């Protein structure tokens, strides 16, 4: 193939060395995260498919046992998670606007929301275990524990990411215009929310 060497225009001065242009890194990271979200959807997809199958097979079982779930805690957690998505979006916005303090505040709120979600979920699980309701009880509970459990793992990962973002923000990384990590981390957090948006009605609101 015919090739010529690039001129040393101003643009290519950046290509020299290791760094790609900031915009390329940004686009690449964001695009990469979207791809990853696709795999996450399919990871949960297996569970959704299992849900659809067993729900269609045993509608009564699902209706019967979902009543034992704690609807109030579920609703509360839904609001918490939606709100955290909102604060995460704001954190990204303020990072873009180079408002370090606001970014910190909203990241922190998001983290706290994640923690509240986890605590409430902990009480839900604990309560179930007290009643000797384990995943092995029946298919509905197996699905309940698997889906919410896997979701919980994602919440934890999201919280770790937020902590890392907080750290970067404190160091003033985003103020210098390199806010790619917040935006990408934000995408991940929103996915956690997205999945819950479906899990909530599927688990708590059937009947």
């Amino acid at each position: 193939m015919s090739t010529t060497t690039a001129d040393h225009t101003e643009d290519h001065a950046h290509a020299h060395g290791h760094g790609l242009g900031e915009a390329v890194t940004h686009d690449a990271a964001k695009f990469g995260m979207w791809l990853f979200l696709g795999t996450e959807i399919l990871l949960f997809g297996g569970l959704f498919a299992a849900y659809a199958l067993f729900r269609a097979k045993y509608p009564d079982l699902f209706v019967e046992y979902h009543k034992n779930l704690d609807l109030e805690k579920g609703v509360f957690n839904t609001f918490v998670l939606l709100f955290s998505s909102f604060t995460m979006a704001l954190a990204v916005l303020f990072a873009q606007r180079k408002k370090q303090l606001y970014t910190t505040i909203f990241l922190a709120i998001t983290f706290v929301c994640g923690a509240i979600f986890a605590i409430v979920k902990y009480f839900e699980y604990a309560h179930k275990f007290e009643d000797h309701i384990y995943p092995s009880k029946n298919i509905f509970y197996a699905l309940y524990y698997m889906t919410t459990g896997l979701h919980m793992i994602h919440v934890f990962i999201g919280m770790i990411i937020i902590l890392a973002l907080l750290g970067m923000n404190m160091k003033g990384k985003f103020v210098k215009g390199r806010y790619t990590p917040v935006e990408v981390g934000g995408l991940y957090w929103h996915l956690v929310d997205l999945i819950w948006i479906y899990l909530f009605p599927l688990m708590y609101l059937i009947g």
Partner: protein
Amino acid sequence: MSIENRDHIEEHHTNIWSYVFVLLALFTLTAFTVLTAIKVDIGSLNIVLAMIIASVKASIVALFFMHLKFEDKLTWLYALYPLFLLFLLIFFTLMETFTRVPVLK
């Protein structure tokens, strides 16, 4: 789309109020879906309604919070294709299971 060494990142200028609005919409829809689930009984359509509401919520989150609205076609493609595959997985698995002909004894 090949390597370009732009240093300027395009920003989407959403403002805070539109996020607040989105949040309120999400809250309202959540309340709505809980209420309809408790109060309204339309049989097997219950789940359909709940799923429609969930999808509206999910779209709102994706479009606004996740800025999908501002993304290029490629991102859209990779956001939607997994959903299509998910649909296939669910559809064909159900189809396979429920078309199995019971063997009469």
